């Protein structure tokens, strides 16, 4: 380097250290570094100068001795690791501890070494595609320590042993465990998995398999479930404390399979403690535990749902086919309501309102409620009872709630048109005997039905209400008119005028009314037909009632509330003390079954026997005779003997109603067929049946045989024809 006086451009050059390309330079420099590495491993790093070492390492690379340095690093570290390995192998009680400490040493050392060799790490190593220093350190540890046969086996065994102990209730050193597993993860996730996790999962599987076998023999269902729940929670906690988080789903899957899935059928069907006993006893918490556990395994929830559904169907079926239950319709429905409430509670409280379970509940109810073909009638009777007597002094809201629940049952009915028929009958009786608890409640119920089934369902019912209202106005008009003006000595009459068509069809049975009554009736009739030209009035003597003032033997006066038929019979005794059955029959012209029922209620019921019967048997025979019972007593002044209350139908009545329903269905089916064919023009048989069923299912389930019959009838009447080319098709004839 020499100064220059000539006019050359001024150059600035880097300060060049005097380099001696001394062959021994590399050896000397490497020795320094090697010495340093040894010192580091011997915990003697404090005496070293970082700057000097760094410089040396830097120079090695600079002067192209990188490879020498790198290889030297590998062999030096390996040597130390071998020593460490021996130390670990010979550790007695504190194997894991020793391993962990050595690991700690090694990583710390490697950090320092990396810092020293930083230049090489950044230049020589990437250029020559070598493993970076720290990573190299890890790999060497992995290869020489972990994968060393003696160490690896012992390591895994120790880890698993610790875990087993903890599972059996002992307290272990979790910190140590965490350090060891962390070491494995740091060495690479495949190391963690291959070395530890696989064995861990296998061992856990056998552990829990054994445990489950043991407990399933001894525990009842609730206890077993709680045990399983506890174990799962334990495992989750274990993972969070000292295992890699990726292990969590794997280990929980193992526990779920061994504890829950393998035994789920046995658990559910366990006698005295399984699912069904739990359902029966409303064990909400245990059911919830089962739900949460079974949710974790495939088909677990389906199993619970299916068993619950079949139990429901069984219980329900028993209920609806039990002849004792069928004697009291109101009680019958109440039991169904209670059952539904119960399961609703269970599904809400224990099954998280799971929709699939709700659906299963509904399907089961729909199944068994339709097994008994009197369900529609009974539901109507229940509503009748509620609307007549109220719900034990409950408020309007409560009545509303009860009706809403009944409506849920109504929705399950397949034969809604049968319900409609009965509801109409029962409503008619309620309206005519003025027995409803509140008109608002009645109207409310009709509104609910309207919302459910549409306007058609309820339009006639509303017609009935209108008739009652109109009749009240008509009565006012009558009494104000000349016809009704001078009725001082005559019986007071109230007439309900029913529009035919709105009210349930009845066979017209008129009987012979007492003379005084006839006069009054004629007056009214004259008045009515005077103001309403062209109408026809027919007296429905089977639906009325009367109040009679009766005086008995010792002068006791009572007011008797009776049906029209009963009135006719009793009035006969004004002119005779004793009459035979045949005489009464002839005088009143009341039809046989009605007359028998009427006489039975007048003569055979204690507290209401205003007549005496000869002989004193319970049943009415046509050879009986009846006498006025002047010894009749009652604590009440007003005695109710009327029988116009809605009751469960007798067998023959039921058959008749059913027949009427079948008759009504025929035109509905035909209308549906015509509607379908009109829009589709040509259709095969099966499709017609499906479409028609769809259209009608809101009201009833049509019988495919009946549909076929109706189709044939329509063919005969030339509304439809068979397609000439393909005789499996039907064609609409415009």
């Amino acid at each position, binding site marked *: 380097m020499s100064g220059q006086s000539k006019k050359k451009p001024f150059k600035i050059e880097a300060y060049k250290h005097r380099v001696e390309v001394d062959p021994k330079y590399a050896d000397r420099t490497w020795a320094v570094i090697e010495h340093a590495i040894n010192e580091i491993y011997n915990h003697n790093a404090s005496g070293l100068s970082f700057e000097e070492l760094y410089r040396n390492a830097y120079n090695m690379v600079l002067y192209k001795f990188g490879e020498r340095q790198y290889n030297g690093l590998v062999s030096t570290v390996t040597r130390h690791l071998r020593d460490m390995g021996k130390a670990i192998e010979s550790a007695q009680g504190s194997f894991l501890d020793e391993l962990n400490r050595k690991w700690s040493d090694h990583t710390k050392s490697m950090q320092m070494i990396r810092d020293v060799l930083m230049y090489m790490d950044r230049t020589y190593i990437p250029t020559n595609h070598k493993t970076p220093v720290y990573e190299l350190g890890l790999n060497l540890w992995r290869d020489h320590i972990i994968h060393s046969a003696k160490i690896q086996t012992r390591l895994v065994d120790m880890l698993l042993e610790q875990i087993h102990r903890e599972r059996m209730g002992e307290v272990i050193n979790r910190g140590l465990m965490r350090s060891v597993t962390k070491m494995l993860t740091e060495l690479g996730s495949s190391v963690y998995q291959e070395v530890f996790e696989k064995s861990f999962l296998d061992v856990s599987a056998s552990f829990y398999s054994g445990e489950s076998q043991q407990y399933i023999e001894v525990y009842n269902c609730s206890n077993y479930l709680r045990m399983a729940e506890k174990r799962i929670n334990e495992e989750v906690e274990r993972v969070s404390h000292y295992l890699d988080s990726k292990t969590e789903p794997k280990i929980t899957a193992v526990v779920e399979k061994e504890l829950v899935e393998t035994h789920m059928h046995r658990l559910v069907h366990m006698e005295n403690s399984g699912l069904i006993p739990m359902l029966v006893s409303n064990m909400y918490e245990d059911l919830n535990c089962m739900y949460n556990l079974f949710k974790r395994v495939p088909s677990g929830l389906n199993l619970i749902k299916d068993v619950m559904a079949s139990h429901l169907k069984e219980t329900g079926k028993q209920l609806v086919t039990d002849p004792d239950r069928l004697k009291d319709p109101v009680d019958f429905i109440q039991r169904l309501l209670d059952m539904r409430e119960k399961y609703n509670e269970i599904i809400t409280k224990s099954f998280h309102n799971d929709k699939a379970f709700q659906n299963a509940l509904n399907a089961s109810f729909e199944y068994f409620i339709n097994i008994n073909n009197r369900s529609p009638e009974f539901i109507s009777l229940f509503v009748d009872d509620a609307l007549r007597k109220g719900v034990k002094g409950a408020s309007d809201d409560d009545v509303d709630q009860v009706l809403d629940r009944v409506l849920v049952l109504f929705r399950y009915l397949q034969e809604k048109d049968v319900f409609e028929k009965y509801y109409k009958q029962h409503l008619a009786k309620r309206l005519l005997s003025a027995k409803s608890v509140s008109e608002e409640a009645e109207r409310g119920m009709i509104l609910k039905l309207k919302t459910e089934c549409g306007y058609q369902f309820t339009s006639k019912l509303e017609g009935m209400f209108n008739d009652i209202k109109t009749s009240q106005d008509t009565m006012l008009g009558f009494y104000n008119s000349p016809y009704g003006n001078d009725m001082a000595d005559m019986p007071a009459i109230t007439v309900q005028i029913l529009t035919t068509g709105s009210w349930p069809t009845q066979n017209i049975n008129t009987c012979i009314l007492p003379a005084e009554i006839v006069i009054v009736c004629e007056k009214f009739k004259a008045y009515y037909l005077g103001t309403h030209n062209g109408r026809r009035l027919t007296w429905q003597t089977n639906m009325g009632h009367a109040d009679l003032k009766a005086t008995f033997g010792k002068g006791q006066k009572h007011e008797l509330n009776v049906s029209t038929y009963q009135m006719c019979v009793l009035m006969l005794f004004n002119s005779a003390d004793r009459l035979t059955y045949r005489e009464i029959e002839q005088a009143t012209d009341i039809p046989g079954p009605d007359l028998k029922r009427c006489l039975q209620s007048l003569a055979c019921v204690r507290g209401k026997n205003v007549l005496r019967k000869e002989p004193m048997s319970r049943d009415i025979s046509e050879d009986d005779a009846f006498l006025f019972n002047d010894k009749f007593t009652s604590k009440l002044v007003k005695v109710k003997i009327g029988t116009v209350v809605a009751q469960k139908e007798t067998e023959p009545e039921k058959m008749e109603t059913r027949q009427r329903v079948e008759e009504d269905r025929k035109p509905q089916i035909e209308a549906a067929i015509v509607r379908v064919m009109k829009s589709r023009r040509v259709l095969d048989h099966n499709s017609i049946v499906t479409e028609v069923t769809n259209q009608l299912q809101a009201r009833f389930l049509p019988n495919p045989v009946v549909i076929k019959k109706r189709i*044939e009838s329509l063919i*005969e009447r030339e509304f439809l024809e068979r397609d000439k080319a393909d*005789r*499996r098709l039907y064609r609409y004839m415009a």
Partner: protein
Amino acid sequence: MRRSSNRKSSSASAAAGSGSTKAASKEFEKIDHLFNVYADKSSAIIDPEGIEQLCSSLEVDYTDVRILMLAWKMKAQKQGFFTLEEWRTGLKALRADSMSKLKKALPELDKEVSRPTDFLDFYSYAFRYCLTEDKQKCIDIESACQLLSLVLGTQFGPQVDKFTEYLKSQSEYKVMNMDQWMGFYRFCNEIPFPSLENYDSDLAWPLILDNFVEWFRENQK
């Protein structure tokens, strides 16, 4: 086979025309003559008595199916009666203008009817022929059974026997309508008997056949 309908209209016009052409009258001369042998003198129609005589001339029984076939050929409207129109139609189609020719034509007629397309027509004609009243749409079961044996007896003997047995044993159906009549023929053709293996009551078979199949299967057990 030429359509007799055309012939009928042509013969009708021939008859209606004030001056029937000489050819036409000559054509039917022999046929008419034969007609008059059996026709009732006052009504100018062959009535049941006349048919009986016709049958004995033909050496065929009154209840023989070939008379029915003859009626079919004639497109006779009313059972037991043949009008001149119908007579002409039938005999011209058969190319018969004398008793001997007519006798010979009968076996040919038998063959003709057996052809599937013709048979279908004949089969449905047989039913309609039995509807004696104006608005009648059904024939009573008894007659239906007899007619079935007559018309289908040779071709589908076993089915006919079983079906008539069923019809006589049940009381739900008192009459049979055209739809059921045709349905049975289709049944004979499409359903193997007595296995009934591809019968599906969900298809458009008339209900009476569904019931028959059910009855048959019950009785087999």
